[in-house]
């Protein structure tokens, strides 16, 4: 069976830490930074479990600030 690898790149400075991508992710890849904040003082999102990402774009689709880029590779 083909294995799908995904990854997201989050523009940290644009992220407002609204948590919607974290909730939208079906494989629980994303989390908000616990202690670190960006220049605007928001706890930005990051990939806590990169290996679980399937590149489905759910996080990027619901992101109100369009700060997520999604990459996907299908390994045959």
């Amino acid at each position, binding site marked *: 069976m083909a294995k799908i690898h995904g*990854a997201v790149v989050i523009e940290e400075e644009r992220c407002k830490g*609204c948590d919607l991508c974290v*909730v939208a992710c079906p494989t629980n890849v994303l989390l908000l930074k616990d202690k670190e904040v960006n220049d605007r003082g928001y706890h930005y999102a990051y990939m806590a479990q990169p290996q679980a990402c399937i*590149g489905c774009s*759910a996080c990027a689709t619901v*992101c109100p600030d369009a700060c997520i*880029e999604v990459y996907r*590779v299908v390994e045959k």
Partner: protein
Amino acid sequence: MELSQIINPANKVYSRPALLDDNTMHYCPGCSHGVVHKIIAEIIEEAGLQEKTIGVAPVGCAVFAYNYIDVDWVEAAHGRAPALATAIKRLDPEKLVFTYQGDGDLAAIGTAETIHAANRGENIVIIFINNAIYGMTGGQMAPTTLEGQKTATTPYGRRVDLNGYPLAISDLLARLDGTCYVTRQAVHTAAAVRKAKASIKKAFKNSLEGKGTSVVEIVGTCSSGWKMTPDASNKWMEQHMFEKYPLGDLKDAGEIKPISK
């Protein structure tokens, strides 16, 4: 597989639409406006309509919409966006003209303009963000505020004996002969966003084909006004807003659809 192998331009499946300007949006974290701006930018970009599109910005939180989507914009006086859009479309019928309005703008101060533009069947698209509150001015009661909903001006909840009933203006617009397409969508999940995108795309198509007024209502959240986290707002919206404002097409191809409540 290493992250560096996955992250390369050849594998990119989703990125920020180029039509969205670089400015960081002034909206609060988790605001539905951001998602709707993004899908409008995507649609215009995918259809290659950038040079052909004129947006009419409202008064309300979306007043700065012209800072975010790289098309031509006109700023309307409060509630007068459909009247202005009528003028633009009549003077230049080849253009794609859309208004972007909130519930205070469209359903309160601009009720007359909205209803008459829709009744005349102007070939414009009205994108209506309904978050049941006046977000920009600090969360006062709007005509669309639900019964019992607490706002700055109804701190004990909206009372119908005092404040009247919530106004489902899209249902009203669906009854008018001038509208060809009236739909109600939301943007709280990825699936809902895709459906909303398809609806706006269809509305733009109707406008270009000269079929009449298309209205796309997006039931949205106002986490600051509702005083909840963005995620809790989405849940609250599913539980309470969808009961009064059920999602789906209210009218398509000139035919009124039965509303399931």
